């Protein structure tokens, strides 16, 4: 008799420990996986499942050193993410994961790290930030350049002081200011342009809308950073998360398997083609 491979759609139960509103429409769900042997790397994602509603790919936004305290920061925009808002602590949902490639935090030890995020794009970068803080002496200068629509949309604002205290240069910008806002107004790319950097020892991690990442990557390349040391996290439709359903293709890549984190050098040409 043929020995069959394990099903990639097998789902495990996850219990909601806490639900924390972050910014308008954005909520963080703390999950625990009773009895599961689970580890992830920064930048990876899980498939979260609600019975009768469906599944959605959500990046992990918590510390990879404590995988038992798994966090997902989610914007309520689709069927499943809206249904998630009806959960309360103690409820369970289904989970498959982790999937995908990671920010290469180990490989870039000894480098200066510039993290550039837009909006919810900060969520998949937070595990990398936690890793860098935990291993702070292993890295050179670290900057987090972060842009959101308004000051009220700045994610994880209560953590910035702590990041600064760990010797991370945190720079913020918003599209639309408020009377009390004293930070920058404008694109996150401007923050990058103003950032002092030594191109030869700099690595860039960026996540946000695709246009933003394109501008960030070109900006960094123009400053002399090699495209091989710029990393982007792409969003595509992830349905199976295991390179079997075909939805997330991007040229030669399955974003669920070969991404979401890509070296810009490997995707630069195709990113410039509209609607690819």
């Amino acid at each position, binding site marked *: *008799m*043929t020995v*069959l*491979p*394990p*099903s*990639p*759609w*097998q*789902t*495990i*139960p996850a*219990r909601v420990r806490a639900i924390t509103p972050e910014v308008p429409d954005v909520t963080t769900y703390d999950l625990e996986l009773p009895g599961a042997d689970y580890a992830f790397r920064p930048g990876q994602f899980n498939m979260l499942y609600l*019975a*009768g*509603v*469906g*599944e959605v790919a959500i990046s992990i936004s918590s510390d990879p050193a404590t995988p038992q305290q798994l966090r997902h920061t989610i*914007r309520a*925009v*689709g069927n499943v993410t809206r249904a998630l808002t009806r959960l309360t602590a103690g*409820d*369970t949902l*289904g989970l498959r994961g982790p999937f995908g490639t990671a920010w290469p935090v180990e490989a870039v030890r000894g480098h200066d790290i510039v993290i550039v995020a837009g909006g919810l794009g900060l969520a998949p970068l937070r595990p990398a930030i936690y890793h860098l803080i935990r291993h702070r002496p292993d890295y050179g200068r670290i900057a987090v350049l972060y842009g959101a629509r308004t000051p009220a949309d700045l994610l994880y604002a209560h953590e910035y002081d702590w990041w600064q205290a760990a010797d991370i240069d945190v720079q913020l910008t918003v599209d639309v200011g408020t009377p009390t806002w004293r930070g920058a107004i404008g694109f996150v790319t401007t923050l990058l342009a103003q950032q002092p950097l030594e191109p030869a020892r700099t690595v860039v991690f960026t996540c946000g*809308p*695709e246009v933003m990442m394109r501008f960030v990557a070109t900006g960094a390349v123009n400053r002399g950073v090699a495209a091989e040391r710029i990393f982007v996290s792409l*969003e*595509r*439709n992830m*349905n*199976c998360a*295991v*390179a*079997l*359903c*075909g*939805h997330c*293709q991007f*040229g*030669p890549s*399955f974003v669920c*398997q070969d991404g979401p984190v890509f070296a810009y050098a490997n995707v630069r040409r*195709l990113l410039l*083609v*509209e*609607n*690819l």
Partner: protein
Amino acid sequence: MTPAPPPGPPWWMKKPALQTLIDRLRADGYEVLGPRMADGAITLAPLTNLAHLPRGVRDDQQPGRYRLTMADDGGYFDHVVGPHSLKPLVFPPRTTVLEVLRVRDGWEYRTPEPPQPKRAILGVRACDLHALAIQDRVFLGGAYRDPEYAARRAGLFLIAVNCSRSAPTCFCASMNTGPAVRGGADLILTELTDGFLGVAGSDRAAPYLAAVGERPASPEEQAEAAAIPQRAAAQQTRRIDPTTVHDTLMNNLEHRRWADVAKRCLSCANCTMVCPTCFCSTVNDVSDLVGTHTRRQRVWESCFNEEHSHTAGGPVHPTTKSRYRQWLTHKLATWIDQFGTSGCVGCGRCITWCPVGIDITEEVAAMEGGRV
């Protein structure tokens, strides 16, 4: 995968011996499927009797056109490929990948036991054997494998037939996938004027060949059999150069031909449904009325549907142009990057079954700055 031939010498058998073969396979627990006429087409359907085969039927295939003609005499396998391939047998159009049951403190997630039907397929063509080998790589060659595909695939007994003619839409010769069967089957038949030549393609074939083979084939019969697929190959007029098509397409992602074909394409997805290698799918939830039992159902999906590329920021492929480009570049170019093989076997189904007769060989030629 089915091991390569040839364990044995070619045998000659009488045409009625095919009935013996069908009976033997059925006695061994196989459901036998083969070409049968239904709704004006040659389909792949269960059969128990030689009389079920479309003897003397030929298919006239042109871009956007399929017609059957009959002759009183003629062979059992004078037709070529119809709209059905092996794909639905190993990758069903609808299946359940997960059962979700309400339990006291939440949900239980259960993977259903995949069915393992034993099926013998009579009359499989070279292109479709290649398509199956490609699907093996897609569903079983990666880090995550599809257990249902594995189960269904293991139960297949493949009886191939060398094509005796090609349709105008066939271009397997240029893709190096046919018309001669070179492996991937358990038993390989060639239909001669008054009998069949049979060669074992795997060890599993030996007892069947022993039961139906009358005598070793003569050198003349072997020569006659070898010439048959060669004749079919010589009839082919369409072609794609598999050694250059990857770069032709990937270096022309902004070619104006994409906008041109988008004006003709209806984005109906027919081509992806009939293609023997297209594997896109979507998993949806189907719940009972009280919500205590949900089935996660996987159904065929197509890159021609807008939802296929849906993201929170809108579809990645919002236009027919971007979708047609996704289909063609995947089939003929990026598939090679992903799986080390083309996603096209030159079966011509997408040409025949396209309601507006779009011909992928012509679209590729246009990108080469060739015919159009």
